[in-house]
């Protein structure tokens, strides 16, 4: 059976590896459609042929359940993201120090309205009481992906991004893992969709997400299992 998985962009890379492992174990094939969660959500409401939805937040899967597009009871938190602050190539100093001393001209974050990592970044800045100091230097990307681009192109010196991106990054970017206590946990929820035609395979995929194998792949990419605080 062939199923379609709608996956939030930030989880695309681990998902690819997880799917490869899943396909080796089962007879099913999975194709991944990635995009921003908001876009995927709109598409699902309009009848997109997705079997499962791996969101970057908790809000959209629960909205889908409420509107009846998701199958009740299928929602669960498949991963918890970790936030890091990354600095441009060549900045040898500790990003945390740079951040607190304000030694940068641009700080990139993801749009807090759209991306949970963005919201977490704002919470962190507020917790560090840096919010007022940095708000004039903020540049906002559509996603953490964009925030990352701002840094690697050298246009911003610091960015709040997902740990997963550092894991995969090219070049020597010093980074600082943001302590989870500084912000609300970034829970990413998945849900099984009504529109999906092969619910059996889809359920198996969701189950596989919670397997040891999947969790170790997630760990490689900097995701923590849900609930581990």
């Amino acid at each position, binding site marked *: 059976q062939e199923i*379609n998985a*709608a996956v939030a*962009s930030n989880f*695309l*890379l681990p998902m690819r590896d997880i799917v490869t492992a899943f396909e080796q174990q089962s007879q099913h094939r999975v*194709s991944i*459609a*990635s*995009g921003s969660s908001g*876009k995927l959500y*709109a*598409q699902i*409401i*309009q*009848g*997109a*042929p*997705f079997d499962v939805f791996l969101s970057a937040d908790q809000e959209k899967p629960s909205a889908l359940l409420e509107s009846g597009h998701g199958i009740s009871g299928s929602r669960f938190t498949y991963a918890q993201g970790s936030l890091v602050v990354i600095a441009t190539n060549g900045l040898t100093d500790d990003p945390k120090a740079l951040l607190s001393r304000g030694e940068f001209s641009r700080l990139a974050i993801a749009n807090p309205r759209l991306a949970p990592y963005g919201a977490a970044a704002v919470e962190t800045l507020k917790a560090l009481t840096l919010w007022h100091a940095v708000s004039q230097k903020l540049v906002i990307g559509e*996603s953490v*992906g964009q925030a*990352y*681009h701002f840094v690697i192109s050298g246009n911003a010196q610091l960015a709040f991004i997902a740990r997963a*991106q550092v894991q*995969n*990054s*090219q070049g020597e970017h010093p980074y600082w893992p943001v302590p989870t206590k500084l912000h609300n946990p970034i829970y990413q929820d998945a849900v099984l969709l009504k529109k999906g035609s092969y619910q059996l395979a889809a359920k198996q995929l969701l189950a596989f997400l919670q397997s040891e194998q999947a969790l170790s792949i997630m760990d490689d990419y900097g995701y923590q299992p849900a609930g581990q605080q």
Partner: protein
Amino acid sequence: MGFSAADIEALWLTLRLAAIVTLLLLMIGIPTAWWLCRTRCRWKGLISAIIALPLVLPPTVLGFYLLLAMGPNGPVGQLTEALGIGLLPFTFGGLVLGSIIYSLPFVVQPIQNAMEAIGERPLEVAATLGANPRDTFFNVVLPLAKPGILTATILGFTHTLGEFGVVLMIGGNIPGATRVISVQIYDHVEAMDYAQAHWLAATMVLFSFVVLAILYSRKHLMIWK
């Protein structure tokens, strides 16, 4: 460095999409341009404005509204379902429709300008020689509007190759059906797979450059013949 199977699939799909869309754009755009050029209808200005309107919305937002319209509750969706075509979003057909709407102004405008530049005389001459309006259209208007049609083709084709906001929204990034090369490059960039993104982008740019350079040289040849 090479292409993955997914890249090749996307490349192929893109070319098919761009070719079909360009063809349909010309088939719709040419008569529309001619009508706009000839009519004395008072709504002419308004209709031109409506054709240009999709341009003012961000492609993703336009795609969002097209998605609503073509969805099961939208007017287009209800029409296509009633016609037994089914729903268009997330199908190749849907991509084609979306791309057409988005690129139509680039096609209608240059053709209309070229047709207006022809003036009355060649049409009058053709009529006195016994050519009916259809005959005149095919054998006088179209050949004389060639520079505009070529420009329209180039703009329509390249715009379809490159645009992905609309496509991403109504296509849903489904491999083999709606994942075109622009989406693929975007995915590579988002996945930080820059090498692959550069490679694909360079291929696109190079291929397009060759095609465009040939078209443009022919255009200049044509005009200065």
